[in-house]
């Protein structure tokens, strides 16, 4: 059931909306009470600017002005500090409900947003090697056959596409109705080097502009509240995906990343509040396609990189920890001399989180979610 956004509403506040929404999105009661939310950060969020390795001797030198944000930031442990915009998430960390994995990356090692997001969402080893998304395949391994998934966007993003039926719904402030076309154009241009390059660039710009135009905190709160309304009811969705854009901070990163993180934090806060008691049954994963360069570029920003950070939140998460096999920020330690070297596989992290959350055998979950990453064991002990 893909719900047509226009059919739904062309108006109305989110509150009024949700009232109309409830009956339409009524699913059969799922046999699991567990809920899972995947928040994708499109545009390559800077993990080093989110969870900063302030204890690394090279941090201040490599990051220049960007390090200033962490002068008075709360320390998570001896090595890491959390960006001051992340108030709600910081509180969850202190309550041991937030866990960060650092120096993580998907199997993708080039630097195209487009291809990187495709790998992140399909769970394949390379761009476009798999035709469906890992979040959709996850529906096949959940203990209940009835669990429903919804994309909190106008169209179904790649991670949720596949053989299992998925609905989608977006408040009017979320991305344009034609996003699906844009994705399909991306696939169409896959074999055409000129058009592929142009298109990747165009989408990057669009994500940036779109976010600056519409990415207010209010929208973030509304999105979080909406997702909660879709997930909270006994007969509501159990899997949800939320897309966030605007993370491609090539210039003026300090202000922009602070605003981006504030919006993310607001969204998480609204989601937790809206879920109420169901929060204890909920796991939230926040991840991005790849990280950003360790060094600051000439325009106060960072360029496309490799390793980044992923976040796991929820009542059942064994939080209050930063998981990192820290590679170091010294020049010699960097991946290709410029990026944070990935030391933890994001796939294994996601597989470990999902299997533990839903009580599925980790090997079975890995085989379903990341079928090409043969033999990679799921990260254990996350829940």
């Amino acid at each position, binding site marked *: 059931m893909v719900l047509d956004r226009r059919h739904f509403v062309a108006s109305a506040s989110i509150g009024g909306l949700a009232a109309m929404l409830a009956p339409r999105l009524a699913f059969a009661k799922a046999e699991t009470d567990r809920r899972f939310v995947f928040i994708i950060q499109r545009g390559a969020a800077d993990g080093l600017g989110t969870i900063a390795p302030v204890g690394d001797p090279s941090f201040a030198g490599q990051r220049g002005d960007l390090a200033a944000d962490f002068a008075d930031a709360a320390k998570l442990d001896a090595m890491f500090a959390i960006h001051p915009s992340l108030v709600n998430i910081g509180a969850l960390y202190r309550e041991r409900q937030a866990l960060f994995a650092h120096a993580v990356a998907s199997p993708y090692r080039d630097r195209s947003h487009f291809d990187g997001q495709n790998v992140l969402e399909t769970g394949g080893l390379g761009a476009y090697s798999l035709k469906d998304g890992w979040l959709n395949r996850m529906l096949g391994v959940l203990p209940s056959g009835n669990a429903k998934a919804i994309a909190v966007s106008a169209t179904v993003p790649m991670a949720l596409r596949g053989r299992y039926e998925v609905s989608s719904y977006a408040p009017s402030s979320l991305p344009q109705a034609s996003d699906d076309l844009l994705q399909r154009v991306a696939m*169409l241009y896959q074999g055409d080097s000129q058009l592929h390059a142009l298109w990747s660039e165009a989408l990057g710009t669009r994500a940036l502009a779109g976010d600056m135009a519409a990415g207010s905190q209010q929208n973030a709160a509304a999105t979080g509240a909406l997702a909660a309304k879709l997930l909270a009811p006994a007969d509501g969705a159990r899997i949800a995906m939320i897309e966030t854009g605007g993370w491609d901070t090539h210039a003026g990163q300090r202000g922009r990343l602070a605003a981006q993180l504030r919006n993310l934090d607001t969204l998480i806060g609204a989601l937790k509040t809206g879920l109420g008691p169901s929060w204890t049954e909920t796991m939230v994963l926040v991840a991005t396609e790849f990280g950003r360069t360790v060094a600051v570029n000439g325009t106060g920003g960072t360029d496309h990189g490799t390793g980044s950070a992923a976040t796991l939140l929820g009542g059942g998460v064994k939080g209050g920890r930063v998981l990192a096999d820290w590679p170091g920020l010294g020049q010699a330690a960097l991946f290709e001399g410029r990026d944070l070297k990935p030391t933890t596989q994001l796939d294994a992290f996601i597989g470990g989180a999902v299997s533990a959350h839903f009580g599925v055998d980790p090997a079975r979950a890995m085989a379903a979610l990341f079928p090409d990453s043969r033999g990679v064991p799921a990260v254990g002990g996350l829940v």
Partner: protein
Amino acid sequence: MAQSSIAMNRFGLGARPDEAVPVDSQKWLTAQFESFNPRPAEIAAAPNSRAVSEDLAKYLEDQRQLRQQYGPARRPGAALAGPPAMSGSMAGTPDTVAVPEPGARKDDPLAQARQFARRQGRDDYATAVGARTIAALVTPAPFVERLVHFWSNHFAVSADKLTVVGLSGTLEFEAIRPHVLGKFGDMLSAVERHPAMLLYLDQAQSVGPNSPIGARVAARGVRKIGLNENLAREIMELHTLGVRTGYSQADVTEFARAMTGWTVSGIARGPGARFTGTDGPAGAFVFAAALHEPGARTIMGKRYDQPGEHQAQSVLDDLAVHPATAAHVATKLARHFAGDAPPPALVERLQAAFLRTGGDLPSVYRVLIDAPETWAPQPLKFKTPWEWSVSSMRALGMKTIQPLAVTGLLNQLGQPIWRPGSPAGYDDIAASWAGPDAVMRRVEAAERFASRANGAIDARALAPKLFPAAVSPATSQALANADSPGQALALLLVAPEFMRR
């Protein structure tokens, strides 16, 4: 790409689903030399240069009288100034010109200027755009229509000058179309005598310093008038020889002297016009002897001592068949049909045909049609926004359009019709058109086209009709996987096959 696909898409303006696929592609192209209609009904119905010039002249005369009546304080801004400047650029683009305020006073020059600009922009310009587009959609000779667009861009005027907005399309209709299958020299001559060109490149105001008028004005020492080299230079640099082909600044100045007297009648009225002999019908070419610089001229080593109008015409006649002109034209044609980096061997053959026939254009086109270089199976050109728009409308089977929708579309896609902003015209290389935002805009436009088609077109069936035996597996798959007929159609319009030719 199959031959038929190349004929329809690279040589033509894009295939139409309701037209038969050519059986003999070469013959299909040469047959168009017979079927081309230089003056189809939609173009015959558009305002001609006389009508547009009449309106222009009336406006300028009103402005002049108002100035006399109220003094210069009531003149509209410099941007809309009338003569003697006649060169102010329009404040807005032709389709965004301010509409007159309600209740504007009849003697308010600014309101009148706005009304005039609106007439020129909305009525004359847009009507001409509509006529050009419909001709491109329904023509029996899409290859020749493409050549019309090619030459119109070669002899570019730009509708961002107030005096040219309404006239811009008439240059193509009156000077290009009648000669597209004739001699290059005849087209050249028609263009340089057309009011749009004479006004656009300031030839209309060029005065020989020693001409009767020039001498008289100089003696009074009041107004600064004199030689304007603009058109003479661009004829040499852009229309004929090409830049850096051996002519000097002295040659340009001499040619400009020879050109003096070539002007437009009936635009500037008042007492001076009668004296100079430019008081004839609005928009007509006139040779005003009173403006002509007397004496023989020497240009590129050749002496021209013809009387009056014939002096510049003799120069044009020589330029039209000059080897540098042949090379210039050959290079541009080869670039248009055989790729951004034109194959030297093809350029040589085109140049040779041009010189051998004295610039007989169909003979040159036949070289293109016979050239293996233009039939390469891989796409050779990234479509310009105009090419993409026309081929989209043809693919959708459209035969009528709203002119303002076309001007709006082309403005959004970055190639406003007849408004390249410079006499050099629009670039004909991918680097100028294949940008990220440009592709995004085409995708957005494709989605709009598709939504208007309202699910009535099956892109999966349409694709092989547009590109016989040339649809890639990736495109076929994307069309098959689309979640709606509209989405499939939008994808077809932006597929790699469709973005290039």
